[in-house]
Structure formats: structure tokens, C-alpha cells
């Protein structure tokens, strides 16, 4: 009951401010989600939009550059990134309808994690000190069934303490993922590493749960407030 009240107040909070952080949307197409998962670690997508129109060799060189700046990708991921960038942000992008038709869904939890989460939270789920909190052992994954879904759908912005350390990185929205993908991803993370021991069937999520959550008028700051309330009530 208390939780329900707090959620209401968090929702009330967001009245009068934009309901969703206005994310830059790239054309739909194979590999777009991977671009979202990799490139937003350091900068937002305007950098890509502003660069749109450059040729494949230049995108290829940019990927080398970004690797030099610290972006990590496997050979397979690099290929998928380049194919997307050169096609959809290249000199002659296909018309929008064609772009949408070729968009493919990924539903394997581990692949989703590697493509979408590992750039910031790291393959081993331990995060990066100061910027990105760990997912391995992060109690936030278990205080509330829906909280991780809100974080993925709407993002989270604001300072947080996790396991005694402070993190200030901005979590962008991953609302570009499908309902099923988000449910799959949350299930995967809640069962990965040491988290497995804390997983209970009560935490189970479906795509329908995610679809319903999309309707909530949350934004990154409201999710941050929601989290603070969760922390205040669950960890006295």
C-alpha cells in the first residue's frame, strides 16, 4: 500500500514536465539497437545524426577512432555497427518504410545484455566506479518487481548510491527495445552472476507487464525519485 502511494506521488511529480525524455531516434534497421547500446556510453546520438551522410570508409575510420577512445566491441559487433551506420546514416539511406521492415528483434538475453548493457555496466556486470553502477549484486534489481523495467524504459538521471558507492552517470532510455526484449533482459540480469541466488518466481515479468509500464508518465528524473522512495522504504 505504501509503495502504491509512493508511486502515485512519483507520477504526480512528473505532471507538468515532459513525460518522456526526448531521445533522438535513429532510423529503424538491423543493428540500430546495437548502436543505441554502444554509442550512448560517452555521447548522445546527435553526434551520429550530425555525421549522417558520410561514406562507409569514414564510418569505418570513425569506429577505429571510437575504439581508440575506449569503445569496446567484438568483431561481430563491429561489423553490425558498420553495416547499420553505412546503410542508414550513409550517403544514400533507404526510404523509411524499407528501414522499418528490415528491423529485426533480438530476444536472447545474453546477446541483448552484451549489445545493450555491457558497454557501461561491463561484461562482468561490475560497472565502472563513479559512473555506472554494478548489476552483479545490485539490490535495486530486487527491491521492486517493476523498477528495472522503469529504468530501462525511461532511463535514470541523478546521483545514486549502490553498495556504498556513488554513481552519477546518466542512464538513457532503452525504450527502443521491444516489450519482450525488455522482459527478457531484466530476467537475464536478475539471473546472472551472484544475482541468481536472489531470483524468485514473484519477480517474473512478461511482455504485457512491460507494455503496461510504457504508459506511465515517467522520465529519467522521476525514475530517480521513484528509486529514492524505494530505497527509503525498503532499506531503513
Amino acid at each position: 500500500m505504501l509503495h502504491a502511494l509512493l508511486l502515485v506521488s512519483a507520477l504526480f511529480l512528473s505532471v507538468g514536465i515532459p513525460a518522456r525524455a526526448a531521445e533522438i531516434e535513429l532510423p529503424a534497421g538491423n543493428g540500430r539497437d546495437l548502436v543505441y547500446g554502444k554509442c550512448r556510453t560517452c555521447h548522445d546520438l546527435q553526434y551520429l545524426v550530425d555525421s549522417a551522410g558520410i561514406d562507409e570508409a569514414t564510418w569505418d575510420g570513425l569506429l577505429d577512432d571510437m575504439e581508440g577512445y575506449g569503445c569496446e566491441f567484438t568483431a561481430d559487433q563491429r561489423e553490425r555497427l558498420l553495416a547499420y551506420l553505412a546503410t542508414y546514416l550513409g550517403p544514400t539511406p533507404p526510404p523509411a518504410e524499407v528501414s522499418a521492415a528490415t528491423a529485426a528483434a533480438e530476444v536472447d538475453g545474453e546477446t541483448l545484455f552484451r549489445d545493450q548493457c555491457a558497454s557501461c555496466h561491463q561484461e562482468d556486470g561490475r560497472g565502472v566506479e563513479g559512473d555506472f553502477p554494478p548489476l552483479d549484486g545490485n539490490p535495486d534489481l530486487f527491491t521492486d518487481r517493476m523498477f528495472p523495467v522503469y529504468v530501462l524504459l525511461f532511463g535514470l538521471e541523478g546521483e545514486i548510491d549502490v553498495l556504498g558507492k556513488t554513481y552519477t552517470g546518466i542512464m538513457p532510455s532503452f525504450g527502443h527495445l521491444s516489450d519482450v526484449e525488455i522482459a527478457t533482459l531484466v530476467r537475464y540480469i536478475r539471473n546472472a552472476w551472484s544475482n541468481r541466488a536472489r531470483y524468485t518466481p514473484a519477480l517474473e515479468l512478461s511482455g504485457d507487464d512491460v507494455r503496461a509500464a510504457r504508459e506511465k508518465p515517467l522520465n529519467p528524473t522521476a525514475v530517480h525519485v521513484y528509486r529514492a522512495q524505494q530505497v527509503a522504504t525498503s532499506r531503513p
Partner: protein
Amino acid sequence: MSQNRPRFGMTRREFGALGATAGAIVALDWSLPRLARAAGDVKASDLIPGKVPEMIVHNAKLGVMETPLELLRQHRVTPKEIMFNRLHFPISGERSWTASLEPVERPDWTITFDGLVSRIRRVTVADLEKMGTTEVETVVQCAGNGRAFFAAKAKCPGSQWQHGGMANVTFEGVPLKQLIEELNPGLGAQVRYITVNGADDPPTPKGADFEKSYRIDDPALDHAILAIRMNGEPIPACHGGPVRLLIPGFYGNMNVKYVTRVLFAAAQSPTVFQSRAYRVPLQPVEPGQMKISDFTITNSEPTYAFRIKSVIFAPLASDSVKAGKVTISGVAFNDGQAPITLVEVSTDGGRSWRAAAIEKPKSPFAWYHWSLEAELTAGTHTLVAKATDAWGRSQPLDGTVMWNPKGYEWNGADHVTVTVT
């Protein structure tokens, strides 16, 4: 440099959020900035409170923004509220720092002088305050300023800066050379470079740290200061406070923010920010001739000194211009090594030219104001401005001849097309 990482900003918001009562939360509504994220939607004032909302945002996540010339031209000394901003990384665990325009007062902030020295030295901001400071009015300019104009030949990747990635401000601090002399760290005979690093960190474990190296015998360093004030107040957080290296006449990336370390070395820094980023080829290249990732320390030069440049401030394409006598005005600047002696203005797209009146600035590094009265008839006119200095250095009429893969150092003669009614 953990001692240099204060708790900063945001505390009120965090405190309010943890109040966890409906009342506290509703009250919080007023302090919820930085929600929008998209180009066009996002306001600079939401990203960095205090910046005016009219700023042109290039990267919301990092608070990268430029100043519309309509605003820039209104001030002799650019106020911080409209100053362009470029950030590579936030300070780890202190994101709000780099998103704040508040002056940073940190007397305990420490800078370490080490490397090939006999004695490692440390100075604090309080020490710098006690030393003799000098103030310089200077242009600061992003190396990518004007990148958008290279697209006339071939688009260069990255933020499409127009002319507003520049400002004319005052910085005050301790001259670097004088400081090194006073600290007397005992430089080794092999020292060829100074490398300066700041408190910002890349957000990924394999990320390259941002630092810059300069030849220790570069005459530009004779004017360099470790700055602690900008426009008369402690340097605003997003502009590099509490300490920023300021090398007048050098492109903005050379003015390292949040300085924590000055390293004396035999070679330049191996970080890609020195060896691959912010470089221009030694020889002009055509699009496609050189891959963007092919930069090395031998085939290219860092974006050190400003190329000579002039920018038309009035009239702009957005101004309504009446036929008759029109004052054409703007600014010009170079690396400060030789005075600007001539600004030529054309009202017919470059077919004929007249010399503008030049106003000499207080400092050789500040921008020169120039103006010319011309008779303009109704119709469309292309105004062009071109500066020349005492060394004969000038601007190419077609700036794309200086095209380079990363789109740095645009200095083409400025063209503005106005419709006169």
C-alpha cells in the same frame, strides 16, 4: 586525484528526493532540470542551468553548445551565460560539476608538477592566488568551429559547428613559465614536452584519458597561464574551474580543464587525444585520400595555433536590412603572434574589396573589431570578409581548400548572404 573530488552541486535535489513525502516531492518539481535530450527539443538552460536557452546544442549528454552570432555580437567580453561549451568527459562520480555554470572556489585543489624532474612539486589554488597573476583578454575557440562549412566539399563527421564555437573572454592566472621557474622542480636535460592533464576521466575502463602535450620551447607557452579566474570570477565549473590551462592563441582543446597534473617529458603523450584526435594533416588532402583514423604523430600536427580568421557579425542573414548606408561589422583574430593589419570587405561576393576600419584590441589575443560603411541597393548581396596580418597570413577565399578529415581549423573568408529591402 581523489582529494580533488569534492561533493558538488545537486545536494539539495538529492536531499529533497530523499524526503520521500508528497510535499517534499511536489516542491522538488521546481528543481528538475535536464529532462529533454533531443536536438531541437533540448534547451541549453536545462543542460547547464544559467546558459541561455537560445544556445545551439550539439550534444545534450555532454552539454556541448555554441552561441548564435546574434547573441555573441552583443558583448565586447562574452558573458559566461552565452559562452560556447565543449566537454569530452564528465568528472567521474561528479557529473553535475561539468553541468554547472557556478564559479568553483577550491583553494585546496592541488596541481602536481612531476615527470623528468629532480623535485616533484605541488601547488594549490590558494598558492596560485598568492602569486602574481596576470589577466589576458583572449579569444577562445573550438578547433571544430566552422566544421559545418567544410560540408560544401565533403561532410566531416562530428558536431556541425557553425561560427559560434568561439568567445572573447578574460582569463586571469599565474604565467606558466614563471610558475615553473618559481617552483624550480629541476627539469631533466631530456625534457622536450609538457603534458597537462585534468580531473576528467573517460567513462570506460579502456578509455583514453584526455591530456595534451606542448613543445616546451613553443613560444606560445610564454603567454600560457594557469588560470583561476574567468571574466573576473573563479572559473565556472563547466568552463574548467577551478584551474584551467589557458594558452592564448591556441585552439580550445589545448586549454585543458580541471588541471591536476603538469608532466615534464621527453616525448608527447601517447594518448589518442594527442596522437590521433585534434590533428590536421601536414599536407592538404582531398576527401577520401586519408582515412579519419590514419592520423599519426608524424603525418599530422596537433590543432595548436589559431589560423587567422574573420567573422561577419552584422548584418547577418537573419537581420532585416534596409537599402542605403549599411554598417558591415565583425571581428577578426589570429594566434596573436603578429597584429592584424587589414580586413577587406566585399559586398559583391568577392569581385571588389574595400578595407574596413580596424579597432586594435587591448590584447593581441583578443578579437579585433572592424567595420565598414557600404551603400547597399535592394536585392540579394553576398558579403565577404577576409583578414590579413603583418606576417602576410590571410584567409582562403574558398575555405574548403583547407578541408581535412576531421574538419578542424576552418578559416575561410566569411560569406553572408543578406536580402536588402
